[in-house]
């Protein structure tokens, strides 16, 4: 039989194995991002464009009583970027599936969730970076936190937590669709209206009745209102708690669905 070259191997307990696999795949995905300068540029340029667009082009005509428009819109822009970033998650998973590397991982004696954890963690790091960039560009353009740094950090965590939860939805979509184009199209068709028919850029009260109703039941409105409570000090009537519960539910449901899907890929 073959030479016992397994001398460098160790046996890990199940939790250590799970953590190890997740970290190894996270590193792989982050290296992947760093090796694609054009993708990096896109990750940074697109959100900056949105800040400029809303700050300067729309900002002039927008009038929210008592609040500067950039203070109002920046939470919306950050949440929108965190949401759109999940399209990249779906595309990356689909590409891995079609390139055969998921087959490689699935035929290894590694944990079943490691590949998906690594994807979600790496993409959450990416989103955290993007949202941070938006914040600093916003500050340069006149954005000011109306509360304090702790509330600001809480708001940041809320957005990143939401990005994390939505990545699990994106992983499930990526595992379910046939190719990267489909993943991209599906993401855009769902996420574009989801972010615009919300309180992200205008108060829902200014919308026609039907859109207003849609905007008010939109979970993104809930999240954005929560972020505004933390950054502007406007009471949102429990949006923060509802957002946290929502993220936990989405994460639990879609991580379980995704792992199940991963096991049953053909």
């Amino acid at each position, binding site marked *: 039989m073959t030479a016992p070259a397994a001398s460098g191997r160790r046996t890990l307990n199940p939790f250590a194995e799970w953590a190890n696999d997740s970290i190894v795949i996270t590193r792989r995905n982050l290296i992947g991002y760093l090796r694609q300068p054009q993708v990096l540029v896109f990750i940074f340029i697109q959100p900056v464009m949105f800040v400029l667009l809303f700050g300067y082009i729309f900002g002039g005509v927008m009038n929210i009583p008592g609040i500067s428009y950039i203070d109002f819109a920046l939470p919306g822009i950050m949440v929108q970027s965190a949401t759109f970033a999940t399209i990249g998650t779906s595309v990356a998973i689909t590409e891995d599936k079609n390139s055969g590397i998921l*087959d490689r991982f699935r035929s*290894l004696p590694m944990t079943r969730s490691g590949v998906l954890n690594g994807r979600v963690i790496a993409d959450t790091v990416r989103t955290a970076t993007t949202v941070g960039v938006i914040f600093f560009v916003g500050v340069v353009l006149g954005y000011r936190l109306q509360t304090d740094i702790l509330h600001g950090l809480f708001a940041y965590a809320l957005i990143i937590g939401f990005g994390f939860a939505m990545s699990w939805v994106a992983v499930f979509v990526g595992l379910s669709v046939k190719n990267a184009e489909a993943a991209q199209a599906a993401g855009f068709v769902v996420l574009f209206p989801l972010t615009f028919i919300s309180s992200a850029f205008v108060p829902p009260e200014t919308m026609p009745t039907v859109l207003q109703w849609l905007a008010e039941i939109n979970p993104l409105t809930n999240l954005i209102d929560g972020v505004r409570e933390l950054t502007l000090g406007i009471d949102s009537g429990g949006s923060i708690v509802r957002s946290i519960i929502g993220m936990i539910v989405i994460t639990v449901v879609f991580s379980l669905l995704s792992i199940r899907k991963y096991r049953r890929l053909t």
Partner: protein
Amino acid sequence: MTTGPVNTTTDEFAVYVDGLTRSFGETKALTGLDLVVVPSTVVGLIGPNGAGKTTAVRILSTLLKPDGGIARVAGHDVVKNPQAVRENIGLTGQYAAVDEKLTGRENLEMIAQLTGWTRRGAGARADEMLERFELTDAGNRPVGTYSGGMRRRLDLGASLVLSPSILFLDEPTTGLDPRSRGQLWDVIRDLVDEGTTLLLTTQYLEEADALAERIVIIDEGHNIAEGTPDELKAQVGGDVIEVVLADPTRTAEAAGMLESFSVGTINTNPETGDVAVPVGDRQSMIAGAVRVLDDAGIRLVDVRRRRPSLDEVFLTLTGHHAEDEEEDAGPDGMQPVEVTP
């Protein structure tokens, strides 16, 4: 890792498959495949596109669940104890399953780290694999810059990081140029010398003939014949007399005249003027065949007696060629395959 209960009757086999079935919707990919691989041997699974080869390998490597039947690898049931199966196998599929953005070394390190190596151990293991597959110089380059042959070698290296006792090679040389293919064959032969059990699928009969000790021919999802290459060739009926006409336009005419000498299906190539007649053990027919053609004024550029090729075996057993018409270019653009007795 758990090893689970070992079945005493099937434990002696590296791979034991009994009545395996799998459908995809209406398509029946496997319809009762039986397969046994003895440890430290090479079995070639051959059949046309869509015969079920890849489905079989995917089930054996735990990527796909069967609908019915038994599949045991290294003594472990692929459905009941997939993780134990994964500890014992390596898989190289039709596409190089490596990350293009990582370097060759990073790819191998990643696989090692995912299977329990320490960071340092993984680095050493990666170096070992790079050296073995002659990729040391390219080790720090992103795989995106590799040639097709280099990718396949890296892919094979990745499937060997674990030192698996059983290796599945699913059409390992499809799409490679002859030189890369030859290199890969050498690597595969080395593995065999070291005692690795190999299950190899291929559409190229030449490849199975060159590498496999036993061949299982499958068609429409189940096995239709098996044996050593020589046994299979004997099954078709001994020797083949092959004549090459000076005027290829008379190929069909010549084939008609040689009908009485044949014990099976005459294989012709109207482009090259090649007529291959299975003659069984009646080797003396060669003189008679030449005389008949000569009398009809058909000039020959070559006459030879040879063993049947596996493609002729396949043709006889299934009624069609192993390779699809549009893909018959094969590794060398050559078919059928010449066999040296």
